[in-house]
């Protein structure tokens, strides 16, 4: 299929959520934020890695909701989604590797005790 054959109307309004649906989505986002803050408050009582993973999970979910619904990625042409995710994943991957390189740069963890960069988090 050539690209020019894919002429589809720019918008298909019917797919968009209605205003009330938007409000519900926002309420969900608010609820997720509330859970995040609760996790922060009760951080001491929860397993450390659980808090971290949970917060990251909620972050990703919020990110996805805003992107998919408010930014219409879910309803738009897939290429937009692909382009954006390309940049996003590239950023995540590259900087994750970079941060790991900082972590791995020492044989032992001696630097951590001295509060030096790379030893933290």
């Amino acid at each position, binding site marked *: 299929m050539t690209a020019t054959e*894919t002429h589809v109307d*720019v918008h298909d309004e019917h797919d968009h959520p209605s205003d009330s649906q938007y409000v519900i989505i*926002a309420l969900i986002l608010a609820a997720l934020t509330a859970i995040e803050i609760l996790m922060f408050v009760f951080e001491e009582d929860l397993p450390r890695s659980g808090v971290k993973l949970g*917060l990251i999970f909620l972050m990703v979910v919020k990110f996805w909701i805003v992107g998919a619904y*408010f930014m219409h990625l879910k309803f738009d042409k897939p290429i937009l989604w692909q382009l954006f995710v390309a940049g996003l994943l590239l*950023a995540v991957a590259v900087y994750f590797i970079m941060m790991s390189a900082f972590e791995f740069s020492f044989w032992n963890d001696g630097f951590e005790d001295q509060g030096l960069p790379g030893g933290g988090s």
Partner: protein
Amino acid sequence: MASATVAVEHDEDHGHAETNTGISNNKLAMWLFLSSDCLLFGALISSFLLYRTNIGDNNTGYDSPFDVFDIPFTSLSSFVLLMSSLTMVLSLSAVNRDDERAGRIWMMTTAFLGMVFIGGQVFEFTEFYQVYGLGYSTNTWTSAFYTLTGFHGVHVSVGILMLLGTVFGTRKSGLGKGKSETVELVGLYWHFVDIVWVIIFTVIYLIPIG
């Protein structure tokens, strides 16, 4: 071998020549820009993470950023920014309905919420500086923190200007269905700034160290 001449049809609603992807040039360009901006914020966030624990340098008297963060306050301004995404999307929806008045009101609300957020950030910065003595050059932590949140703040401010510009710039020509793409683009930018804050809020303010 004559080549065929093709009359180019126009989409009256949007005033654009049809494109191969079916997406207007402007929208495609905006998305490209946003995906590029991911790399920008990624670099800023990683720089901050590298110096995340270095707040104790230069004898500030604090061992951890959580000694200075005011999480309830920041949560509130995060919430405000999150809700501004809702008002933004309601504005677009109104404009799509050709409901100019509602479109303007929601857009102004969005801008207002954005300003509240910026106000909160200004307050936080002053607090850090005056109460805790954390200046831009105090240590690596402050430099990274102010730079990251500052860049985000600049993005929000630009967004506010874009919103106000759209509201006031269309006084004569109207803000009806014909402007739906303009509003959509401003909205995309605005939501992006919001999701960047979703990340910053979690990674910088909430996730515990160690």
